[in-house]
């Protein structure tokens, strides 16, 4: 008799509606950031059409800023690619962590992995450590046109720095990440120490290294969870121990956007 494998997906806690909700919020920040990127790149001597193409095919703020900055600062193609590649290194562990939640063969998984962007990936995390594909796909799908649209407007109209400051556009992204972090900690208060250490690392690192690298270093703070797990035997599943601080069935890092508690 053949072996029968039954795949049981975790209960839906987010789905595309949650992705749409969180994606809309993130897209506001993405639009504002892309606006500044478009203006920055054009003022740095890049042709508007290439800046727009870059946003279409790359869709990665930190790396795009880094590449343009490196080229403007007298660096060549290698230094621009090196800086951008270093900044985006964080996507390697993020994508690896998402692997078991994606579907299909290697090629399909590779394509699905392209939807991984910071905000979407965080929002799609489930309490059991898996990833809600629909939430991530939708959140990214909403942000991409906002990113491209913001770049188009920024590249063509090049608004001034004062414009961003006067209209408070520079506060959008930090605020959104702050709210997502608070949501995350509401569901998993045991990660408060991780967040505090990450903030400390980030504050120090951003003085010495580019933002993307600082972000990568912040990820080291997550190692605290591993150390704690080692201290307690590390046998408990990631999702099981998280329920201590959250409501039953909810409260993961990205569950708040989808669990209805915030909306």
């Amino acid at each position: 008799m053949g072996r029968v494998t039954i795949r049981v997906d975790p209960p839906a806690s987010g789905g595309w509606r949650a992705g749409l909700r969180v994606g809309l919020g993130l897209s506001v920040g993405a639009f504002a950031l892309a606006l500044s990127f478009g203006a920055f790149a054009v003022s740095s001597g890049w042709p508007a059409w290439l800046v727009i193409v870059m946003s279409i095919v790359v869709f990665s703020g930190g790396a795009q800023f880094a590449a343009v900055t490196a080229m403007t600062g007298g660096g060549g193609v290698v230094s621009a690619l090196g800086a951008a590649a270093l900044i985006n290194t964080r996507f390697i562990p993020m994508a690896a962590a998402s692997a078991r939640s994606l579907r299909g063969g290697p090629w399909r998984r590779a394509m699905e992995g392209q939807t991984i962007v910071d905000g979407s990936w965080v929002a799609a995390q489930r309490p059991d450590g898996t990833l809600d594909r629909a939430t991530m796909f939708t959140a990214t799908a909403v942000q991409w046109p906002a990113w491209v649209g913001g770049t188009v407007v920024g590249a063509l109209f090049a608004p001034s720095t004062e414009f961003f400051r006067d209209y408070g556009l520079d506060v959008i992204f930090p605020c959104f990440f702050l709210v997502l972090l608070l949501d995350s900690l509401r569901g998993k208060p045991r990660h408060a120490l991780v967040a505090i250490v990450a903030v400390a690392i980030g504050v120090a690192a951003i003085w010495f290294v580019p933002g993307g690298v600082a972000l990568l270093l912040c990820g080291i703070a997550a190692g605290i969870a591993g150390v704690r797990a080692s201290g307690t035997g590390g046998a408990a599943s990631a999702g099981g121990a998280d329920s201590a601080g959250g409501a039953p069935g909810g409260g993961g890092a990205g569950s708040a956007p989808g669990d209805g508690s915030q909306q």
Partner: protein
Amino acid sequence: MILVVIGLALINFAYKAVGPAILGDREFPGVVQRIVDALPAAMLAGLLVVHLLGDRWSSADVTVVPGLAAAVVAWYWRAPQLACVVIAVVVTIVVRAAL
């Protein structure tokens, strides 16, 4: 410049493709899974700091603090995420106009 765009697109694609394509359905050991589970909190805290301070703290601006504080209060009272952001923006605009 065109080479940079093409190269960056390929690097970005590879970063996001390799893990999912190779690892497949494999699950991480418990300790690794704990770390992966804590990554979002670490990344969010990092994103907050990076966007607030900027390279060499070039974007550090005390006028955003009241706006962020207002967003925290709104979040505490269970305001939707987008509402929290709008409140932060409005408070920041008002603070900057007043100073």
